[in-house]
């Protein structure tokens, strides 16, 4: 369809603000992913776009036209509800085909499209069951099927894959992506799965407490988080943070804390020297032998993650997590030397966490 524009959208539930002065434009045919902690207002935002909830303040525009007063059934959007909202009295077939039926699509076409969708979702043999006879994941797939089977101006998907196994999720992800390409419509997607967010989106909007913290491409979000919250939110295991101060040591701009001393990019400017250093676990290298510029630490615990190992290292009382390739064989209290990739450091003000310097995207050696 359509560009979806939210202007100063605020939604309060009896005094509690769920979404706060949200401004966001989702381009035509864009795939935007909304992420954020539980309860930050993602579903509420979708519901407002959809027309199920009326914004307390602000306006919503589709293609520049205000739709605030347009009821959901006239908005031409399709939605997967976080809670599925399947029609309990209808079979899976009828559930999926319902919207098509409402759009007066010929019966034969409906049957075909429903079958097609069901095949995609691998629920072909469940078509004649009622929702209560399905497993959780099967229900979720029906909900997804209901949304994707039809043609709509915008597709709003609220955690549509959360109850599926990894395999299926990968497949479904691909299907959704394919649909996005095929129909060339606007997609707004909510997920808690970072891989999903990173791989599928044109842009990611990170929300917190009803406020958008950053809205940018996946790379940008990952590489240049706008603030400490975004930095900590994206990436799993999350970024390490060390509080310290910025100083010039021997003419070299240096970050100093009780645990770490680390050269930083000379361009970083700040009035307040109190800063926080951020470094992602995968940007840390561990070696058993001393390396120049590496800090001495002790292994605290290591957790295998399949292909990698997550090693928590204690450096002077600070705990730092590093993600290193399997195998990693050092036990508790073994000595390691910790190196931070200087090109991938992040600095934030200690006061409000704003990024001081979003380092250019540089290659790890």
């Amino acid at each position, binding site marked *: 369809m359509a560009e979806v524009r939210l202007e100063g959208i605020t939604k309060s539930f009896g005094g509690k603000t769920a979404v706060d002065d949200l401004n966001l434009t989702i381009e035509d045919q864009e795939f935007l992913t909304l992420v954020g902690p539980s309860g930050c207002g993602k579903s509420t935002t979708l519901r407002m776009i959809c027309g199920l909830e009326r914004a307390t303040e602000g306006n919503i525009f589709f293609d520049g036209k205000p739709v605030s007063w347009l009821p959901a059934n006239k908005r031409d959007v399709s939605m997967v509800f976080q809670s599925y909202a399947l029609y309990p009295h209808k079979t899976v077939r009828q559930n999926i085909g319902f919207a098509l039926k409402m759009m007066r699509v010929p019966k034969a076409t409906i049957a075909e499209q429903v079958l097609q969708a069901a095949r995609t979702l691998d629920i072909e043999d469940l078509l004649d069951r009622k929702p209560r006879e399905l497993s959780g994941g099967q229900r979720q797939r029906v909900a997804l099927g209901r949304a994707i089977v039809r043609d709509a*101006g915008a597709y709003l998907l609220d955690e549509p894959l959360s109850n599926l196994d990894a395999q299926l999720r990968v497949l479904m992800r691909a299907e959704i992506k394919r649909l996005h390409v095929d129909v060339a419509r606007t997609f707004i997607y909510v997920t808690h799965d970072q891989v999903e967010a990173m791989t599928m989106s044109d842009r990611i909007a990170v929300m917190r407490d009803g406020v958008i913290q950053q809205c940018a491409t996946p790379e940008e979000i990952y590489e240049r988080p706008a603030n400490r919250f975004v930095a900590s939110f994206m990436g799993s295991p999350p970024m390490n943070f060390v509080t310290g101060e910025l100083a010039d040591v021997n003419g070299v701009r240096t970050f100093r804390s009780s645990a770490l001393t680390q050269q930083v990019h000379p361009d970083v400017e700040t009035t307040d020297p109190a800063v926080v250093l951020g470094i992602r676990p995968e940007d840390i290298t561990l070696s058993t032998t001393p390396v120049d510029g590496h800090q001495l630490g002790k292994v605290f615990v290591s957790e295998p993650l399949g292909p990698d190992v997550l090693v928590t290292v204690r450096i002077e009382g600070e705990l730092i997590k590093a993600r290193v390739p399997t195998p990693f064989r050092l036990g508790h209290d073994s000595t390691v030397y910790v190196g931070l990739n200087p090109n991938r450091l992040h600095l934030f003000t200690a006061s409000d966490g704003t990024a001081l310097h979003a380092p250019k995207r540089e290659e790890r050696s």
Partner: protein
Amino acid sequence: MVALNRLGFAERQPLGDNAKAWALNAPAMVVIALLVAYPIGYSFYVSLQKNNLKRPRAKRFIGFDNYKALLTDHAFLSALKVSALFVLVVLGLTVVLALILALVLNERFRGRGLLLSLALLPWAMPGVVNGLMWRTIFDAKTGALNGLLSQLGVIDDYHAWLTSGTGAFLFTALAQVWNTLPFSVIILLAGLSTIPSELYDAATVDRAGALQRFGQVTLPWLLHPLLIVLILETMNAFRAFDTIYVLTGGGPGDATTTIALLDVQTVLTFTDFGLGSAYAWVITAITLLISVGYIGLLYRKGNFEV
């Protein structure tokens, strides 16, 4: 979004909840207003009159004199007492029995459909047939109850069940309960069927026994159906007329003369429309008061959304 554009929708504010609500209520309100507003208003007006059809020419407006007279009207006060007791007994029995029966019907077992239909049976029977039935059952000379009990050896002789005040009262109440049971059962049963079974699952896992499940899950969900049952059954018990009339005619003495009986008698037998309407309005006021009480007690507690 083609369709959307074609609509050329302007910013048009749809109806607010208030307007929508009134619009939705309009049909019902119109029908009710059209049909009962006049009769209700009229009957209230009549209640302010001296108006006995036997003396049409003596008809005149007397304000609240009819009501004032009630305060010292021995028949009225005694009927009020009888009614209150009757309501209490009938309501108590009905609610308890209906609840149990509804709970039974909410389970799966062979013959459930049959039992459900049977539960509707008393409701489907025309009043006169119902009256005849009770009369022939409680009859002192040829009654089925007497027959049954004496064949079972419970009693030696045929009893006249309705000749003592208490007996008359209790048996009438029993017959009344039989008659009003179906409504309560249906409402409560339908109420039960709205309770998601997973809540029982959750409660069972949370170690709630059957009784606690009832108290913690069933009851809160049933508050509103129960409210309806309470209101309607109170109303019905206050207006109970047919059964009492047929079984005892209000006797012996005044033992079962309820306010409703008195009212019907006043209007239809004595053709005293003024006084009769006043009685009716007193009944209305009392049931309204009680209902508002129930509502105050239960409405909010049961008012949750799923």
